[in-house]
């Protein structure tokens, strides 16, 4: 418990320093283009009171959750397959590299142009952006699977399910964690772009409106709210799961 509190304490101290620097800069600039922390908190309260904040955060989080889940599942399946089958890797590996280097914006625009300005085009565009990342990470993990342990599982007739659960997945866990962590960061950024370009709600849509009004306080308020939520997911979900998956290590 002290470990968790200690970590949170350090994070809080570090963020407090950042806020102090920001406050000092805002006081010096005296401009609506660089609002101070209290002004941003006011904007946050206003957005929360009007119900916009909950509505937009909810819409964005739902898109993040669905496209993230979709990308993790599809990307993992693709990556494991590429790792297991050299033929598949020879055939599809170059596609993955191509998609990995295709700008997110291109995929988003094409998805909207081809499939219309709808929810599924938005979610698919985000997922397609993320799938190659997950696939590459999981391919690496699959290629690195221990042959010694696979042979052991074969001799002792573990069977498919036991081998997957007790031999393969624990070896892939760190790769899942790496893909999930970088995935979360990437997906929520791309979701905002998707919303900015073609959705009538969500944090991205709200940011565009604020941008048109040069309402920097609202922009920062939404960034703050969203950053806090992503941090909470990282500290509350990703890190505990990682610790549990690694408790066997010396």
């Amino acid at each position, binding site marked *: 418990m002290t470990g968790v509190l200690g970590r949170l304490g350090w994070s809080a101290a570090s963020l407090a320093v950042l806020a102090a620097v920001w406050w000092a800069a805002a006081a010096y600039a005296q401009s609506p283009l660089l609002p101070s922390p209290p002004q941003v908190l006011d904007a946050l309260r206003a957005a929360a009171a009007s119900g916009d904040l909950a509505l937009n955060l909810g819409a964005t989080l739902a898109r993040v959750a669905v496209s993230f889940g979709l990308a993790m599942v599809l990307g993992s399946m693709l990556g494991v397959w590429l790792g297991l089958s050299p033929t598949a890797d020879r055939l599809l590996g170059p596609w993955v590299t191509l998609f990995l280097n295709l700008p997110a914006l291109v995929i988003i625009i094409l998805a909207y142009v081809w499939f219309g300005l709808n929810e599924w085009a938005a979610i698919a565009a985000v997922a397609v952006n993320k799938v190659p990342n997950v696939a590459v990470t999981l391919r690496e993990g699959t290629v690195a699977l221990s042959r010694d342990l696979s*042979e052991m599982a*074969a001799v*002792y007739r573990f069977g498919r399910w036991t081998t997957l659960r007790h031999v393969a997945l624990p070896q892939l866990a760190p790769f899942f964690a790496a893909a999930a962590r970088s995935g979360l960061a990437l997906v929520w950024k791309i979701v905002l772009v998707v919303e900015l370009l073609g959705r009538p709600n969500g944090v991205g849509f709200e940011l565009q409106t604020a941008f048109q009004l040069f309402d920097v306080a609202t922009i920062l308020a939404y960034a703050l709210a969203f950053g806090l939520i992503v941090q909470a997911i990282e500290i509350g979900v990703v890190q505990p799961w990682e610790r549990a998956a690694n408790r*066997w290590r010396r």
Partner: protein
Amino acid sequence: MTGVTVHIRAKTFPAQSGAPERALYRDFLLEVADGSFVAVLGPSGLGKTTLLNMIAGLDRAFEGEIRFTGGAEPRIGYAFQNPRLLPWRTVLQNVLLPLDGSPASERRARSLLEEMGLGDAADVYPERLSVGMQRRAALARAFALEPDLLLMDEPFVSLDEANAEKLRDLLAALVARRPTTVLFVTHDSREAHRLADRVVTLAGPPVRIAEDRAVRPSSGATAGTESGPRR
């Protein structure tokens, strides 16, 4: 229990980085009697591990056949050169995974661990144990299965002599109490003669049997055949 007839017409080692393909085994015949303890002796790098892998069904890239006298699919326990325990499962879980999950098999696993001095280590992750204890855990896994055939690939290598000797005693006691067919690969002649009732010395390549000697009456159902060098 099961006996094994190993007949390898040809096993080649693929050509790599300039070196040509080379014949590892050619017209090799080894018969292991049901219930015998056979030590296979030979220098490192000759292909002894390859032999065990072919018998275990891990290496199928050869011409010839492996026949088991006790049925087509015997239960095989394999003590590899490295313990090959799952580091993310406890010692007890490692021993239980190959078993059928019945309460009886769990009781057997626990009492085996107890007997091998691993009673307190049952719920510990393998990497927190010494190498000697890891080897004992691997041995427990192979034995808990009550194998028809036990393959052992230099399981006591890289241990200090005192520990290796303790494990040899343990192995001898376990085999005496629950007889099984054992094929024990080693490059240590003393170890081979101390444990086995028949010592097969390999030479090559290609691998052939240089010497085949019964060192004591077999404890198993069929006596090991005494014979000179044969092909």
